[in-house]
């Protein structure tokens, strides 16, 4: 296949970027999208032009490192697929393809297609965990967890943190990412003691960096793991309930 690529090039965070056009020739339909870019980079290197920078690691759709806008769609046209798992057979010979980095104020461009997604780490650091020290756990089978809860928790837990949800959202909101982690934990009995403090901490940190959710649902359709926006509704419920909680009073009652 022969393709025309329009690729965003930007030297660093402070410089102005621009689209540059490249030809990709004799691309194998069995190549992945990133392998196609590897090939383009080999040619650029041969010709003395610096290769296009992009993040990628596992190339199995699980690490969440990769992700670019392909013709305006996060991770490209194939449903439920990260960029590294998108294959060129999904395109036609002669296609023109526009490739851009994620666009969101919270994610400044570092170079070309590479963005800084540090705010996602900040949300997890705020409360995306269960507080248990190493060695403090009791036997794993002491608390039975209904299979349905474990399955729903796993559905949420399959988030790979790629940030396609933010890139897809007209408000650059991170609600799907935040809700997925929060509900993975809140759906399990182990996560229950910190349920409401977690909701407050994670939502408030999210709001420091990201826009607000207005229920467009673009995040769900962009998600390479098809994570449901139902989790956002569950997060909102926990967050609202947390507003009516008197944490100190609860602690006193429990302490008795």
């Amino acid at each position: 296949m022969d393709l025309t690529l329009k690729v965003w090039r930007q030297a660093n965070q402070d410089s102005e970027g621009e689209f540059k056009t490249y030809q990709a020739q004799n691309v194998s339909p069995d190549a992945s999208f990133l392998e196609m870019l590897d090939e383009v980079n080999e040619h650029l290197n041969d010709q003395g032009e610096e290769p296009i920078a992009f993040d990628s690691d596992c190339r199995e759709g699980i690490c969440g490192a990769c992700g670019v806008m392909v013709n305006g769609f996060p991770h490209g046209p194939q449903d439920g697929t990260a960029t590294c798992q998108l294959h060129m057979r999904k395109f036609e010979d002669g296609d023109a393809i526009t490739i851009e980095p994620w666009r969101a104020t919270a994610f400044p461009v570092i170079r070309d297609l590479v963005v800084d997604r540090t705010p996602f780490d900040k949300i997890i650091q705020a409360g995306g965990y269960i507080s248990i020290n190493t060695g403090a756990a009791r036997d794993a089978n002491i608390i039975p967890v209904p299979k349905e809860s474990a399955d729903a928790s796993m559905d949420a837990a399959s988030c790979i943190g790629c940030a396609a949800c933010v890139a897809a959202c007209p408000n650059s909101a991170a609600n799907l990412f935040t809700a997925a982690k929060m509900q993975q934990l809140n759906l399990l009995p182990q996560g229950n003691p910190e349920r409401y403090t977690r909701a407050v901490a994670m939502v408030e940190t999210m709001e420091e960096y990201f826009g607000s959710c207005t229920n467009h649902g673009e995040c769900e359709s962009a998600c390479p793991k098809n994570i449901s926006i139902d989790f956002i509704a569950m997060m909102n419920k926990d967050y609202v309930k947390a507003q009516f909680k008197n944490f100190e009073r609860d602690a006193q009652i429990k302490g008795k």
Partner: protein
Amino acid sequence: MTDTHSPTLDAKIPEGPIQQRWDEHKFHTNLVNPANKRKYEIIVIGTGLAGASAAASFGELGYNVKVFTYNDSARRAHSIAAQGGINAAKNYPNDGDSIYRLFYDTVKGGDFRSRESNVYRLAQVSNEIIDQTTAQGVPFAREYGGLLDNRSFGGAQVSRTFYARGQTGQQLLLGAYQALSRQVNEGPVEVFTRSEMLEVVVKDDRAVGVIVRDLVTGEISAHSAHAVVLATGGYSNVYFLSTNAMNCNATAAWRAHRKGALFANPCFTQIHPTCIPASDEHQSKLTLMSESLRNDGRIWVPANADDSRAPNDIPEDERDYYLERQYPAFGNLVPRDVASRAAMRMIDQNRGIGPLKNGVYLDFNEAISRLGRDKIEERYGNLFEMYERITDEDPYVVPMRIYPAPHYTMGGLWVDYNLMTTIPGLYAIGEANFSDHGANRLGASALMQGLADGYFVLPYTIGDYLSDWLNTEPVATDDEAFTQAMAQVNEREERFLSINGTRSVDYFHRRLGHLMIEHCGLARSREGLEKAISEIRALRDEFWKDLKVLGTSESLNQSLERAGRVADFLELAELMCIDALEREESCGGHFRLEHQTEDGEAQRDDVDFSFVSAWEWINSNTSQTLHKEPLEFEYVPPSQRSYK
């Protein structure tokens, strides 16, 4: 050169009955009292299962920890891609499992080339890992009664593998990442992302810090600490095409080796039997299909050579279910080395399948008719989807095509029972060390070992070393040891950028990979290894003359990053071949064509080779010196492994 009486190789294995060694050792280990822990600095390199779990546990104990990862987030480490599961001796299914059985299976699975004491400890702490990670909120698969579910993996006749769909590594890694994030929030741990360690700093024969490159700005910085922990994974990417992530590399381990840490069993590499075969020469990596698929999938090739019919057109009596035929007791669940070599033999007999005749079938038709499509979808749905995305074939209808691919490296930095390398103060944990898997790792044991080292072993053993340095400050980063190491790093970078040759980094990496898979892959021979060594040397010369890296060192420069990693692979590859040549026997993943039984199985030589090879770098690659740590088997007497 061989030095059999090396004073450096004291493995510090405790004495007494194996069941009590770990407890005794913990009791006799020096401790650091809780109030003193905050006086210590520890550096951890890598945020995979081992690194993240160790760093989180150190933080909980009160140590000050700096963690470095080249990824943009600690959550990306390649442990995340592990699919099938994690072993533990819980015996929840009541099928006869025990700590002793897990120990026995692992020693046997490793083809009697691992340390019994380490393996026993691993089996002991396996149960605590399941308790810990469940409490963290890892959503393991459960039965309808709400209790944890198990499945089987290769090399075992019990169900002891815990799993979270086909994403067990992801869930365990995220659990460790979350524990780490909690410590970042609470203060003791600081994580540096997009930061690659390029040198270990050694002063007065002990590790005192590291040199790190900020991958965004290119800034080179020095960091000092009382101890340095390498949790930097394995070196399967020496083969270019492997199941490792694109960025996995051996640089941290290799730099440590060049500074005096002995490198153990470099030729022990695992070629995993169930990967999707390569489709063309531009392929960048290979994708694993979890071993768990062998629970329900049946492996076969056409009974006749050069049969090019579509799989579903080949009648049952013209198929050869060769694993079930050759190994009736374990069938499709033989260990990885055995399954990979059996596939190789089939392909060598021109019975390989697929467009390049480079695969074997993994067939689910029988399981689907027995259990129904829904059950198979529940167990393996995401793996089937991944397969279809890559190959454009529907595995519910057409059997999967699979082929062996480099996956894991049992070799790594030599460590003692405390997980310390031969450089005092420098530790290696997880895949980066060599100790627990011998010559072949069993499935679902890598996650177990990474988390055992990080959560339950190193947090105890590191205190023994640290207690000697109470009330001392870490060496200042303007010390000569640091400035020299920084100068080395800078000089190397400038050299990459000034060669101005004609070939890209990938060009050399691909060629190295071809050499290694051909001569130091599934099958090795004296002739092939000698050829490989001379060709690697020639390729290394060419690399340093004809490499072309554009751009500068003062910005994000992915070609420059890769150049450093491939330069180190070009040295490590040679040592792998030297080690493979030296080891005149076959064991586990190391298969010398000269040493096989009549039916083509690995022929060990316990009289001459029951030892760990630990290589010492002396000035150059050509003068690596071999030290031997003898292996003793008091509990599992070595035998010809039989899975028949």
